[in-house]
């Protein structure tokens, strides 16, 4: 265990834990859009900034991807930290004014927002879908396409590879804005514009999972497809 200080309070922190985890353990509220406790931190939204003191100097740092160090001091509510979080929210709201998740956080952090209902579903490039697909599902059907020298990309985006997607829908589940859409209608599921064939359970007849997903699970676990083809309720 490491000794750290959060907002003046002495705390024991697990080695390898992040600043955000320790802040959350104290029930201090810090906004996040790109964070998920099961996924590698990405530091995309910049909303979770706090001030940390290491080697004698205070510096801003995104709490989600900063691991704690012994003796670290953390200030979650300093003027600098609050201004930084508000500025990040302000920029996000400038770019995505129609997205509810953004608007709510911006409002909470003191950004002046329009009273009208936000009805947009923008992609914030938070990378939750990309990380879920590679780290949880293990297929990497989604990759980040960055801008960079000589790449000639006007707007960075998430690229979908239909050849490896298994149609599991985890990306749609984790998406904070509803940008990733999934529609399941009887024997068909459409996700990222790709149509998947759903498998009916031989017992109850319910279309419960895409065939590609069951094939993938069969391949990775060695469980025969025929066993997986029965839905969990009827097994």
């Amino acid at each position: 265990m490491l000794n750290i200080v959060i907002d003046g309070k002495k705390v024991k922190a697990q080695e390898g834990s992040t600043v955000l985890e320790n802040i959350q353990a104290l029930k201090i509220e810090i906004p996040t859009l790109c964070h998920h406790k099961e996924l590698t931190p990405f530091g995309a939204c910049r909303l979770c900034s706090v001030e940390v003191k290491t080697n004698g100097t205070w510096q801003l740092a995104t709490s989600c991807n900063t691991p704690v160090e012994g003796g670290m001091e953390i200030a979650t509510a300093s003027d600098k930290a609050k201004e930084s979080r508000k500025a990040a929210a302000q920029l996000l709201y400038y770019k995505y004014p129609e997205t509810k998740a953004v608007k709510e956080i911006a409002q909470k952090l003191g950004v002046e927002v329009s009273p009208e209902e936000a009805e947009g579903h923008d992609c914030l490039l938070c990378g939750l879908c990309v990380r879920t697909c590679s780290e949880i599902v293990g297929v990497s059907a989604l990759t980040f396409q960055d801008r960079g020298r000589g790449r000639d990309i006007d707007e960075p985006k998430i690229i979908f590879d239909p050849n490896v997607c298994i149609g599991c829908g985890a990306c749609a589940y984790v998406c904070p804005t509803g940008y990733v859409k999934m529609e399941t209608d009887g024997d068909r599921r459409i996700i990222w514009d790709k149509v998947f064939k759903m498998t009916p359970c031989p017992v109850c007849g319910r279309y419960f999972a895409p065939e590609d997903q069951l094939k993938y699970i069969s391949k990775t676990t060695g469980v025969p497809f025929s066993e997986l083809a029965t839905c969990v309720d009827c097994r």
Partner: protein
Amino acid sequence: MSLVLTLHRIRCLRMNKVAFSSWNGKVVDNRNGKAAKDVAVNLPVPGGKVTAMMGWGGLVANDSKADIPSLTVGYLKEARKISCGECSVCMIGIDRLLDIIGQMADGKGTKAYLSEMQAIVKQVSANSKCSFGQSALYPVLDAVKYYKADFAALITGEKKLNGKEYRSTVTAPCMDACPAGLDIPGYIELIKNNRFEESLSLIRQDCVLPGVIGRTCTHPCEDACVRKDIDESLSIRLLKRAAADFDLAQGGKPFGVPADQKEEKVAIIGAGPAGLAAACQLRLKGYGVTIFESLPHAGGMAAVGIPDYRLPADILNHEIDLIKRMGVEIKLNTKIEKLSIKDLKKQGYSSLFVAVGAHQGNRIGVEDEDAGYEGFVDGVKFLRDMNLGTAIEPASKVMIVGGGNVALDCARSCVRLGFKKAEIIYRRSRAEMPASDEEIEGALEEGVSIRFLAVPVKIIAKSGTVTGAECIKMKLGKPDESGRRRPVPVKGSEFTVKTDMIIAAIGQRPELPAMDKKVGTTAWGTIEADPVTLATQMDGVFAGGDCVTGPATLIEALDMGNRAAEGIDAYLNGNTPAEQVSFAGVDLAKQRGRGLVVKGPAADVAFLDPKERAGGFEEVEGGLCAVDATHEAQRCLRCYRVVVWE
């Protein structure tokens, strides 16, 4: 570094009197005719008249009437192309700044916009994820602060934006250190995002032998890496190798299809890195290319100078094969004894690139060196014979003279060939040894011993066969022109070493074909070539690689091949090639404000157990697997630096 490359890298303009400068936070303002202070600003832009420039280090105006608001827009537009989008504040902040200036110019702005701009710059710099976002916007802060009236004039409509396209370039400390200027942050970023194929394509634009360079490069990029002073440099060389290995595992993607086929053919002498790079780049431009190679194998020093345990032959052969598959013809065992441009023209070649390398060992200056003793051999010949498959009978003891990579390659090869004892003798100390640290450590692990501060003065032989050497101890005196302390013999310290073989590895020089006198050569026996175009004094003949620089690295030779292709293309089209941008003298690592960097060591790779190395030539160093490579790539701080100027 060679003379020619030094010349090539100092092509930057030094501005002494400026109207305004905030470069690296040092503000000099001469706009109102105040006492004109001189300021030394190494402008990282090519020669010629520069009115104003904006870059990561600040803002510099040579003319007090320079249109700074328009320059700021030009700068932000370029910065926008580099801002990756992985963190919100940098990507959106740049868009917002452009939007604000645009609104000002449309007459919709208020003075509050100026303070909003300043606030955005400060917040983006403090909260960006990478080094680029943390540093890129500072010059905008300077523009708003010191050219407030000019921005205010936009709001009132007194001034308009000029909408100009500014000249611009991008660099980074690693890119600038790379002799071939590879887009290192770019290819690392693609690996990070699991886009290995695109990463390799980007590498190949400037480095046609990625698997070879990824194994053998002396990686000056890693010495320049900003992380070096924080924890450990990125393993840039291994990341390049990872991209190449990934491609090879997928079967090896061919090079792109040449552009429209051109009528002209180019002849190249020498299939080393310089020749191969020039061939590949010329072929991509559509020229017909024939390489004449005197040896039975293509690859130059990569084939016959570097042993297999460092660079397996199949890696090199695969990469040469890809170049051949583009339609480059390689004529092996074809030595050009006499160079006649007339003959080449007759054979249909419009231009010639001489890249014969430096394959002749230097004399070590001892008595009886030329007596033709059995057991005395020069290092490059030893390696060449070994790599070409000549059987070498292991002796019981070998002495290798020299402290460079060739000496190390010889010693480590001897261990593998079954020599019982391999000893390097070097006239200076460990600190002055030019061989790379990895090589020295590898050799020591394998049981090679190094005798420092000693040099042989006489070969001892019995009936024509080497039996030993008379040596003398040295001490270090005053530094010589290379900056290293000069070794001085210690009087009366002579001693005898028994040895069955002596390998002389103290440098190489080129063996040039007989040439028309019009091609100038230097006192070192190298060819004189223009530092930018690589043109020689003979019309249509270009030269590059070790035969111009003297023995240098593979990546330097490769870079000269790339430049020769540009030079030849320009020559055949009657143009002059675009001027190179250099950042020499500018401290690229210097950055205004840097965020908290989470420390973590560089990725490790497995090495072959030293006990298993003797007796075979199996590759010693392992590569990074794709997962480790993506993790290592995430350590990159992305220190891109943008500069625009007019």
